[in-house]
Structures are given as C-alpha cells and as structure tokens.
C-alpha cells in the first residue's frame, strides 16, 4: 500500500481518495479487534486510517485485510462482509494481506474469536458507504434521482432509462464525492454473499505446496539458527561448552542470548519460558540440528520467580490440587446463603474434576525470520498479536517502533500459542548479534518442551439437595496451576438461589498461555459433567434439567452480573435436542450431551461414543451453535468440525506431564494426537438462524466437547470420567485384547 499517511480526527471514520491511475480508494479504520488495557499503549488522538477498499477502473475490488490468518479463514470471511454491502460479485474481490506496521495499526490481533464480531459493523458501513458514493456519482452523471439507481454485482442500474454503468466506470468520479455521514445498510434478508460459502482464498497455494509459511521463507545470505533451552522449567543456563560444536561442518557461531532487557516489565503477551537461551547459527537446518546434539549446557535450578530452586513434578501438582480443594479459596461470587443451604441439605453431592497441562502442538513448529541492521528491523513471522511484541522488540533491540516491520506470515496453526512473540524477539536478537538475516527454527521437541501450555486445572463442585431432591445450593471451588479457570458469572450462576464460587491458584515455573477458549476449555467439561450426574441423581433428564435452570435464570435471575442470555443458551440446547432426535444413535454407542457459552457464542454438542481398536471411539458428533449471523457458512462449518475433533482428541488423549521440572512428552511419538481413524465417521453442525450480529466461531464449541465425551463415556461404560485424559481411565478399566497401552 502506497497511500500517503493521512492524519485526521479519529471520528472521521472514512476518507475517500483518487487512486493513482484512476479509481477510488475508501480508507477506513479497521476495528480494534481486541480491547485491552496495556500500559504504554496510549490511545492516539489521531491515527492514520489503517485499511482501505480500492475500486479499480476495470471493476476489480481490493480489500486490505490487517488481521493475521492462521486457518480461521478471516482472509476470506472478512472480505465477504465488505463485498455484501458494496454489492459486488465475489469473484471481483481480491484480498491483500497486511504486514504489521505499528504506526498504521493500533491493534492487529487474531484470537479470542473476535475478528468477525469486531469487524462486522465497520466493514458493513465501509462497504455501504463506498456503494452509496458510487450511486451518487452515477446519479450526477446520469442526472437522475439517487433513489432511482439500484446496484447488483458491481453494476449500477437506472431502470427507467435502462442505463448501466460498471463500478469501475464511475469510481474516479466517486472519489471526489463527499463521504456521506449516514448510509443505509442492507436488510439481513437481502444478504447474498453473507451466509453463503466461499472457498479459502489461499486454496490453490495450499494444495500445490507454494511457499506460504515462515518456515518456507528465504532471503539471500540468510543463516539458520536454532535455540537450546534448559531441560527443566526453573533451570537457567549458566554456561555452555561449545568446542566440539564450533568445529562441525556449516556452523557459524555459538553463543548465549538474553531475550529481555534488564528489569523489563513484561506484559501478558511477553511470555518467555526461558529468557536465556543457547543459540547455534549455521548454514543449513540439518547442520545446525546435528550440532545441537553436541552442545553441552551447564544449568542451575535457581532461576528465581515462583518456586525458585524447586523443580516441579506432576505428582506434586496433584497433591497440591487436592490440598487446595480442601482450603478456603478466594470468594468470587456469593448469592443467597450457600453455607446454610449446605448445612440444611439432606444430601450433598460432591465431585472433583482435573485436567493436565496441554501442549498446543501447532503443526508448524516455531519459526521466525529476522533481519536486524543498525537502524531497522524486518521480521517475517507467524504471530497472532504482532503489536504486543513490538514494544518488547523495540526495547530489546534499541530501535524505535516505527523502524520495526513485521511481515505477517500465514500461521501453520495458532490455537492461542502464536499470541506470544518470544520467537520474534529471539530471532531479532540473534540477527542483531550476528549481523546477518537469520531464520530461527524450533524442532518439534524444542516447541513441545518450551512451555506456554494450557494450565493444569482442578474443580470441585458441590450440590445441596433438600428432602424433595430439589437443588438448593451450588458450590464451585475451582483453581489451577498456575491460573484459575473460574468464570464465576457464567451458568449455572444466576439459576440457583444459594451459590458460592471460590477460586485458587498456585504459582509455577511452568509457563502457560492462551489455549483455544482459555479456562473455558476445562471448566465447561467439568461443569457439564457435574450437571449431567446431578440431573440423574435428581432423577431428571439432563437436558430438561439444564432447560429448567435456564428458565429460572431467565424468569427470576439471581444476581445481576450473569454473563449469558438464558434464552439464547436454551435455544441452542433445544436445537441440539431436535437434531438429536433425528440422528439415530449408532448401535453399541453411548450418547452424551453438553453445552456452554463463551466468546459471545452459545454452543451445544452431542457425541455418540463406541469402541474401536479396544479404545473409546466417537462415531458421531452433532453441534448446535448460536453465533448470530454466519458469514461464511462452509468455513464456519469447517471450523466447528475442527473444534469438535480437537475437543474429542484432547479429552481422550491430551496430556503433558513433568518429572523434576522436565516435560515428559516432546513429540508426537509420546504426545498422542487424534488421527483419521479416531475422527468421527459423521459430523453435523447446525446454526441457530437469527439476525444477531456475528460472534465468535473458532473457540466456543471446543469447551463443551470435553463434557459431551465424558457424559457419553458414562452411558457407554457405566463409569463416570472425572480426570482427563479419559483414555487412561478407560484402559485401566477395560483391558485391551492387544497391546497393554500405557
């Protein structure tokens, strides 16, 4: 993009300009896709407009997309919104992927399932405004009233005189028209592109193996770098022995780097599991990989921070979680008088659920290209949140922010992990030190043992039942190492008179980060398993029980901070129930159901679980979602299917564990991933048909899958599953005919 930087009042939302060579450019501000209070992130009073639509003379339309892409298809879905309001043929729309320029973009973030939700009103308005300006230009040219002009697929039409103009033909004229302050948006009923299915715009490149990812990037004179981090969390490198390494073929340099400036105050995206790293730089990946094996690290285990001097083990974590469940937690919400309800209860049902640390296992291991010179830095990187790491880069490299350019690469998976930019800092520091362009590559093992894991969690739920078997009190004591997943204002809060939610957490040297639907990805499964068991204890149908609670929450909500719309929540459950009645349960399977609300979207899921290869196997899964208007139907279905498969896989197999601070699973040969033969034979996805603004899609279906799988396993085996990964309990209780299987 070569448009001049235009400074103007932020409220001036749109600005038109004539394209060099003809045509119109409408600049506008891409939404702040994630609102977050970060220090040093001062709101600028005046900013350059950060995105644009171009209408070219030949009728092509270009949309500039600043959102990073990691498979969630925003690069396709966002332009669809624009094309709809602009009323152009989808085939005429081209998408340009933005690089990251901090002076132009305040926030470029993909995560939290917010991309569509935040972009929705702005893209619609931008598209409708451009369309209106083209109509105004045509009205002037034809000298007819504006109201007599209609548009369709990039063509302006004056019916009375049967005249037509293509957008490109009036684009230059439209560029000089004053930007209208108010425009009419399309009626949802008139949508043609939104709600249809448009193919991934990168499809041809993906299926023919074109370079798309950071790891494919190459620049003349580029060297390859790899890092070696301490084996155990809590350790720090004190020295390295590199004599043997330096003599190996292709090796250029060996050294230790520190990734953060002294006394640097980190923000929440500055997760650095190991701030001191050994680095080997060489000519090729294979040569550096070989050299890595020969490097000897000297380590000490007193890095500082939580548990300085101690190396943690999973067994110890379990003991701590058991202890925490017995201690008073931090009260996050209290409704009514839960203590009395429990004191007077005729029966108390108490269950504890746990889940291990999880590794993201993005298919593309970390890579980052950096070329840092004396006065500028250029990076090419997979990163969900480029802006957050720029501050760190600037401080560490000693370069002003505007001299740091980050090219956004397609990400080989994100799932939360690529919100953290440690690899950008590492690559940049290495490049600065060796004074050459460098591509940093992590091995799978480096990445799986680097941390930024999903935390390990525990939840103890208690329900008080009176002599009539009615629910009178509910108590959640929820925590994790090192972070609690409690969302105290979510369902069933608001549906129960006497409610207590307590939270705890215990620090750890093991680093954590966002993982597809953070916190929710555990608490949903625990809560939905408990509600399922509770319903049966109360002799109720589990679905009816949830609907009863939601009815109560709607009619007489307890408290005023409840973080869900009971009607829409009940709506997805009803939709799922309707679809479930139509879907025959395969012979020999058990059926489980769960629902959850997060990321502004309601999701309900059903799984039918049977047995295959002597292991639990989900044969069929059905989902119902209410995420408002669905923009790109098939892409949304694809993502929902992926979330179901991901949830099933992690529920059954996902686990990282530790002995003396050392992560015990470092590659797919020990970390089991769901595979083709374990993916359901049949998946169905349904959306509630409404006209609500679109909300999150990538995450919300993932959390309830854990509950649906646990509840289905109960129907299938007669046993409740409280501890993830569920396969362990299954194999302990169902001896396989072949293979002992740990």
């Amino acid at each position, binding site marked *: 993009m070569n448009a001049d930087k235009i400074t103007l009042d932020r409220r001036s939302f749109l600005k038109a300009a004539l394209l060099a060579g003809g045509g119109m450019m409408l600049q506008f501000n891409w939404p702040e896709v994630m609102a977050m209070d970060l220090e040093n992130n001062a709101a600028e009073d005046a900013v350059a407009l950060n995105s644009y639509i171009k209408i070219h003379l030949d009728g092509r339309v270009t949309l500039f997309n600043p959102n990073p892409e990691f498979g969630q298809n925003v690069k396709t879905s966002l332009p669809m919104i624009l094309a709809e309001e602009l009323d152009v043929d989808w085939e005429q729309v081209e998408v340009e992927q933005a690089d990251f320029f901090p002076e132009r973009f305040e926030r470029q973030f993909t995560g939290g399932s917010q991309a569509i939700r935040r972009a929705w009103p702005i893209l619609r308005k931008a598209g409708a405004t451009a369309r209106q300006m083209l109509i105004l230009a045509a009205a002037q040219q034809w000298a007819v009233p504006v109201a007599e002009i209609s548009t369709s697929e990039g063509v302006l039409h004056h019916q009375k005189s049967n005249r037509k103009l293509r957008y490109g033909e009036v684009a230059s004229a439209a560029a000089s028209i004053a930007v209208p302050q108010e425009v009419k948006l399309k009626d949802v009923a008139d949508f043609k592109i939104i709600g249809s299915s448009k193919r991934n715009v990168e499809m041809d490149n993906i299926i023919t193996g074109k370079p798309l990812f950071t790891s494919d990037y190459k620049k003349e004179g580029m060297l390859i770098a790899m890092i070696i981090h301490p084996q155990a969390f809590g350790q720090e490198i004190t020295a390295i022995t590199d004599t043997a390494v330096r003599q190996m073929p292709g090796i250029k340099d060996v050294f230790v780097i520190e990734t953060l400036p002294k006394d640097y105050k980190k923000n929440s995206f500055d997760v650095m599991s190991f701030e001191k790293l050994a680095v080997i730089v060489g000519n090729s990946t294979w040569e550096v990989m070989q050299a890595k094996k020969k490097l000897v690290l000297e380590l000490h285990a007193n890095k500082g921070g939580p548990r300085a001097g101690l190396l943690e083990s999973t067994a110890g974590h379990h003991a701590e979680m058991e202890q925490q469940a017995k201690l008073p937690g931090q009260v996050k919400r209290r409704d009514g008088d839960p203590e009395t309800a429990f004191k007077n209860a005729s029966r108390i049902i108490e269950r504890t659920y746990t889940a291990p640390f999880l590794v993201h296992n993005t298919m593309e291991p970390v890579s980052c290209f950096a070329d840092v010179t004396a006065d500028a830095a250029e990076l090419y990187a997979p990163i969900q949140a480029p802006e957050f790491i720029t501050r760190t880069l600037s401080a560490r490299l000693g370069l002003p922010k505007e001299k740091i350019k980050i090219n956004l690469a397609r990400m080989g998976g994100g799932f939360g992990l690529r919100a953290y930019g440690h690899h950008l800092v590492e690559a940049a520091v290495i490049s600065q030190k060796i004074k050459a362009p460098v591509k940093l590559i992590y091995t799978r093992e480096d990445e799986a043992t680097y941390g930024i894991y999903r935390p390990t969690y525990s939840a103890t739920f208690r329900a008080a039942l009176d002599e009539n078997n009615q629910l009178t009190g509910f108590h959640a004591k929820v925590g994790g190492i090192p972070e609690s997943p409690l969302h105290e204002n979510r369902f069933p809060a608001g549906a129960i008179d006497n409610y207590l939610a307590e939270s705890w957490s215990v620090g750890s040297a093991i680093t954590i980060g966002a993982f597809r639907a953070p916190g929710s990805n555990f608490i949903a499964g625990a809560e939905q398993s408990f509600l399922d068991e509770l319903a049966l204890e109360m002799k109720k149908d589990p679905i009816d029980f949830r609907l009863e609670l939601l009815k109560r929450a709607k009619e007489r909500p307890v408290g005023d901070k409840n973080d869900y719309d009971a009607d829409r929540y009940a709506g997805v459950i009803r939709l799922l129930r309707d679809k479930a009645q139509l879907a025959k349960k395969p012979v020999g399977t058990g059926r489980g159901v769960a629902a959850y609300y997060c990321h502004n979207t309601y999701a309900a899921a059903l799984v039918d679980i049977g047995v295959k*290869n002597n292991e639990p196997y989900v044969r069929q899964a059905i989902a119902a979602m209410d995420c408002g208007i669905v923009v790109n139907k098939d892409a949304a279905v694809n993502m929902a299917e992926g979330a179901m498969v991901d949830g099933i896989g992690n529920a059954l197999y996902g686990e990282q564990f530790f002995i003396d601070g050392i992560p015990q699973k470092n590659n797919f040969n*020990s970390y*089991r991933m769901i595979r083709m033969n374990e993916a359901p034979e049949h998946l169905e996805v349904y959306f509630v048909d409404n006209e609500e603004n679109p909300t999150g899609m990538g995450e919300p279906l993932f959390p309830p899958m854990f509950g649906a799988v646990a509840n289905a396993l109960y129907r299938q085996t007669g046993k409740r599953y409280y501890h993830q990964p569920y396969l362990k309990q299954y194999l302990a209780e169902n001896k396989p005919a072949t*293979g002992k299987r740990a």
Partner: protein
Amino acid sequence: MKRFSTKNRGRLGHYAQRYRFSITMTILAILLIGIVSAFSNDSTHRVGTAAAIEVKKDSLKSLAAFKTVYAVLQSPRCLNCHPSGDIPLQGDDNRLHAMFPKRGPEGKGMLTMKCANCHQSENTAGLKTPPGSADWHLPPANMKMVFEGRTAHELAKQLIDPKQNGNKDLKALIAHADDGLVKWGWDPGEGRTLPPFTHAEFKEAWITWLTTGAYAPGK
C-alpha cells in the same frame, strides 16, 4: 548367518556327546510324544548332505531351554512384531503402534503405511525414532505367528507347527535365530531395553530346545 553351520553345532557339542542316539531313534521318540509334524520328514533335519542335525530327545533339557526362549520371545523386542491383532505394538510397554499401521497381506504394511516408508534399513538416531533393519516386517497375514498372549505351552506348540510357522522345518527354524530382523532385537536403538538374555544365550537355548525334542511346557 543363514545356515546351521558346523560352528553352531560345535556349541552344542556337549549335548551331542552325552546323548548319542541315532537320528532314527530320535525321530521315533518324537513320533511317540506327538510333535512329530515338525520333524517327521527325514530331509527336514539335514543340512546339505553332509551335516545332519541331531535331535536327541531330553525333556528336561528341552523344557529348561524353552524357559530362556520364551522369556526372549515375550520381551518387547520380539513380541511387538508378533501381536495378536493386525497392528504391531511398540515400546517397552507393548502399546499399540501409533497411527495403527496394519500388517497387510505380506506383513510389510499396506497402502501409505508400508513398514519401509518409515523404518529404514538401520535404526534412526534419537529416542523414540523409527527403529530399522533390512526388510522390516511382521509375519504375513496367512501366518501370523502370534506371541502376544500366548502361554509357554501354546507358543512351544505353535513354533514347531508347520501350519503356523510358515512351513519352517527344523533347519529353517534354527536358521531363523540368525535372521537379521531377529538379531535386530539385540541392537534395537536408543532407549529400548534388550531381551533378558544375550543373542548367544538365546540361540543356544533355541537350538537346544529344538534339538532335544522341542517339548512344550505343561498347560
């Protein structure tokens, strides 16, 4: 070594000297204990024309030797490729092979998951990487030679049953101890435990067992 060489016979010398029965007598003895099928044809226990394998029935020796044989065959290095299903096992804990590759008709895997697609002619360096040996495979589909879950009695019977052992005669069975893939068990690559006896101990016990009547332990 693919053949039952004189060197190997030499190792068995002390048995041969102590129990000098004629081959005919041995065959008769084997006939009497009912495991005749393996050795009933005279040609099956001769190597070439010069060196005959002497089989001298001795149930005590035979059963003692089979204890060693059984312990080795039940070790993960041997058992993992002799599973009861069609999916090989892996690791010291005999878990199902990740990605569930199937035996295929020839025991060499099938479709995209042929053994040699990942298993090279040598071990791949590193922990939990694909082990390798020339012609990495499982027993074929029509002759699965299952070790997993077999009692000592069952396995002994099965090993010498030509219908179940790939029509191997005494000579072929003895030679199998020196098969490249069998010997891989004692060079299994990083992080894999060895069988409980050395290859020499195993081979000696194997041959002893076979040449003292191949007795099966009681049920």
